[in-house]
Every structure is written in C-alpha cells, then in structure tokens.
C-alpha cells in the first residue's frame, strides 16, 4: 500500500453531496442500515439458516408423521394439525433469525462502531427506527417466504396419506402468515433486547430464555397457573398465531397478535429510553 500523492485535495462537498438541512432523517438512516445489513456475511448466513431450518425441519417432521401414520391411533390422527406440522421447523429457525436481530445492533456495540453511527447521526431514536424498519421488513419477507415454502413442501409430503390441507381451507392462510410474522417478531425481540443489553451474549441468552426456557418453567407450575401464564409467553403466542385447531391452552390468534405486539412495544419502549439516555 502506497500513500496517494498528498496534493490530492478533496473535492468540495457541495459538488458531490446533497444536503437536506431539514426534513426526515429516517430515509437516510434506513439506507445506511440497509447497506450495513447486506454487507456482512452473517446476515446472509442467518437468513439462509432461517429458511433452510424452517423448510428442512418442517419437511422432516411431516415425513416422520407420514411414515408412522398407519400405526397411529385414532385420537392422534384426529388431533393432527397438518398446517402446524409443516411449520414447526420455525421453533428452531427462530433462533437463527433471533440471533441476527441481536447482531444488528450488538455487533456495533461490541466493535465500538456504534460511536461512528451515533456521531454520524446523533438522533439515536431515528437510528434505532431505521434498524427496526429495515430488519423488520427483511425478517418478515424471509420469514414469510420460509413458512410458505415449508407449508407447500410439507403438504406435498402429507399428501401421500391424504392428510394434507390447502391454503383455501379455513384458517390455513392466516396460520401461515402468522408463522411468518412470528419469525419476524422473534427477530425484532432480539433487536430490542440487544439494544437494552448492548452485549451479544446477554441478549441472546435472554432471548432464548424467553422463547425456550420460560415455557418449560411455566409448565412446571400447578394448574391453572401453568396454562394461564404460558399462553402469554411469546412462543405460545406464536403457536396461537399459526395453529389452525382451536386450543383452550392458547389465546385466539387475534388476541395473541395483540399481546405479542404489546411485548414488542414494551421492549422497544425500554430500548428507546435507554439508547437516548446512555453514554455511547
């Protein structure tokens, strides 16, 4: 590497930049976040993992059911939810998208890049909003694409026993969209937690605890506390959103969506307060 001739003075900014003095900073924040998101490999791998796990594991679970179908008793056959079965891969895939959500901001805190980010845009809430919108849209698109492919693949496998459903059947379309939304919501929850904790490990541990460990702990409680509490946890809210059968242990899909949005709102309210107040 040789240094350039030092006489190469920079061109005056006015010639090469547009400089809106007022107006919304949000589009600029979003463009910047989009560049950051697409320019690191961990993004691509996390999204590929989300897709591959959702589709792969969903297909595997459907295949397992088909292969044992002839040996199953009537009760198990009757309570079978073909839609949910093809989507269940997302219980593992949520970890991939959740980690990506965490890394969106924790990677900036751990490298110190967050200071450059805040120095270039001191309006920190706008920075966070840019991240939420850009990542939220990407997570929703990838999540929805994943669950739709998983659904069609799974139904194709289930067809061999004629236990498949189609998108036109009651509640099925809502359930598949609900599954995609759930993936995006877990990713956003990761982003909110990482903004609060500013550390990758702490945010991931909390996120996984929330979606994986809390449901187990809640189940250890005596009834009716166990179901009353667990139905408000993110994982059960997700299950409510992508189940076709009605289940007394779950909230209705609409209520579940509202509660899960309340979770997100609470997490991002805390994140927004902290990001503005704390030293970077």
């Amino acid at each position, binding site marked *: 590497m040789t*240094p350039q001739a*030092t006489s190469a003075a*920079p061109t005056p900014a006015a010639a090469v930049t547009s400089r809106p003095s007022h107006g919304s900073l949000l589009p600029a924040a979003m463009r910047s976040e989009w560049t950051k998101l697409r320019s690191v490999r961990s993004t691509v791998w996390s999204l590929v993992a989300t897709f591959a796990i959702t589709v792969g594991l969903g297909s595997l679970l459907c295949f397992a059911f088909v292969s044992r179908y002839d040996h199953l008793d009537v009760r198990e056959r009757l309570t079978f939810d073909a839609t949910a079965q093809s989507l269940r891969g997302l219980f593992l895939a949520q970890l991939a998208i959740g980690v990506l959500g965490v890394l969106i901001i924790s990677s900036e805190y751990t490298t110190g890049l967050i200071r450059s980010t*805040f120095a270039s845009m001191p309006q920190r809430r706008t920075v966070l909003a840019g991240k939420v919108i850009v990542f939220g849209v990407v997570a929703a698109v990838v999540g929805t694409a994943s669950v739709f492919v998983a659904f069609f693949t799974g139904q194709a496998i289930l067809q061999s026993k004629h236990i498949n459903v189609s998108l036109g059947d009651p509640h099925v379309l809502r359930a598949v969209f609900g599954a995609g939304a759930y993936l995006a919501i877990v990713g956003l929850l990761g982003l909110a937690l990482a903004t609060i904790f500013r550390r990758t490990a702490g945010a991931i541990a909390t996120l996984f605890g929330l979606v994986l460990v809390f449901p187990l702990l809640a189940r250890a409680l005596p009834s009716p506390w166990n179901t009353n509490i667990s139905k408000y946890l993110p994982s059960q809210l997700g299950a409510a959103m992508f189940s076709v059968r009605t289940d007394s242990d779950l909230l209705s899909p609409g209520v579940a969506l509202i509660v899960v949005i309340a979770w997100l709102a609470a997490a991002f309210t805390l994140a927004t307060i902290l990001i503005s107040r704390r*030293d970077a």
Partner: protein
Amino acid sequence: MIEAQGLTKRYGTTVAVNDLSFTVVPGRVTGFLGPNGAGKSTTMRLVLGLDAPSGGSVTVDGRPYRKHHYPMHEVGALLDAQALHPGRRAVDHLFALAQSNGIGRRRVDEVLGFVGLSEVARRRVGPFSLGMKQRLGVAAAMLGDPPILLFDEPVTGLDPEGIVWIRNLFHRLAAEGRTVFVSSHLMSEMALTAQHLIVIGRGSLIADDSMDHILAAAGTSVLVRSPRLDELGRLVSNAGGTTTSQDGALTVAGLSAEQIGDLAALHSIALHELSPQQASLEEAFFELTEESVEYHGADTRADHPYPEEQR
C-alpha cells in the same frame, strides 16, 4: 470552532473531565495533549455528543453536537480506528456512513483514493493493519468535507511514511482554514504537528497556549564544554546560575550564553562548546504539570502517570 465551557464528566466517583473550558479555532492545528487517562478521549466523546456531560457544555459551530442534522458535513471525527465490523468491506463501511448523511457513492471512492486505500476498497477490513484502519478512519472523517475535524490518537499504528503523511494532511487541512483538533499522548509528535496546544492532566486544563509560548515558558539552558569545567562551574554558580554536569559537559540554567561566554573570557577560560538548548516539549510538559496544583498530591512523573482511563 469548538467551545467548551466548564465541561465536566463524572463516572461514579471518578472525575474524568473537570471544569474544562477551551476554544479550538479554525486555521491551525490544535494539539490536545495529556498522558493516557488524562481525559482526552472522554472530552472528544463529549464534543461529539456521545457522552452527556455531568456539568458545563460544549458546542460545535455554536450548537451542541446532538442538535446537528447530518453532522458529517460540519464535523469529521476519528475516535477509534479499530471500531469496525471486521466482516465488512472498506467501501461498504464508508458507504453506510455516507448514506446516513445523504452523501453519495462517488464521494466514498474519492476519499478512499485520498487516503490511498483504493486498491483494498473491496476487501473486508478485519485483516487490515492498524495503519490501514487509521487511514480508513481518516477517510470516514473526510466524507462530508467538514470544516471541523477531530482526531483521537491518529498516529498510533502508522508507519513512518504514514506519520509524515498524516502530519502533512493536518497542516494542509488547517491551512485550508479548517479547525483541526488532534489528541495525542506523544509529545514529540505534537511538537511537530500542532501550532497550538491544549494540555490537560487528570481531566483539568493545565495549559492553553501556542506551542512557541509553551516552549519558551519552559525556559532555555546552555550547554558548556571546557577543559577547565570545574573552575567555570564555580564561577557560574557564584554568578547565580544553576549547574548540572553530565558527560564532561555542564548544563547551565539561569544565565544566558552571552553571560557565560563573558564570564569565561574574563577569567581566560577556553570554551569548547557554548550552545543554548531549547527545552523539549517533554520538559515543557513536566514544567507545566509541576506548576499544576492537581499534581502535588501524588508522584505522577514519568513512568506511571495515571491509572488507566475509566469508562
């Protein structure tokens, strides 16, 4: 123009910056000198609105930094060259920063060429040397072509060629009428880079003066060599000079070279050398810090000046 008024920052019970007031004006390189942990980086973060002051205020262009929209057009800063995502390409790193301030892609290529990193623009920055990262940091600071530039320890990690390059860059930026504020704990580097110095120790202002004044205030001494050194030494002492002898020479403070020469001639003592010594910035620095009340409580000289900077 950067103006700090009574700027104070406490972390718990630690006072990192203590009632600091200074003004950094355009058209010259202002050095920000102090030992490690003196509060230089904290002050820089306060200027950039990254940390909120516990007391006092600091403005950039008359406004607190956080009130600026698209601040890269006003202020360019290099705080920590290592603060990069290792998996991101140099060009993407700069482009993301540029986009947040409405700066176009062409400018990114321009600043990369300007710092000599065009060839590695499409490489991921993880394996970059510290020197290359410093250059990338300079490129980022220049993105908005700002009239005010802040550099925190920019020389660290640069090879000799890079040091000369960055020193010339600072001089040229100042000559263009920009405000250039450069922190360093390396006094020798500051002596070559800065025309004006703000010196802090333990978060407090020690000096805010031109380099020439600071060096002059540290005083000059005279180096004397003579075959009759002992005799001359006694005469000099009698005349009111203070002497220290080393390596067959005498360093005299308190008398001018002319006075010593006359004294020697009067007593017919031959002189083999009679040279005024300009105090180094290092000596000037210790001179200043000795005068500072802050310092009298502890042995802070030389080796272990301060505890590591608290965050």
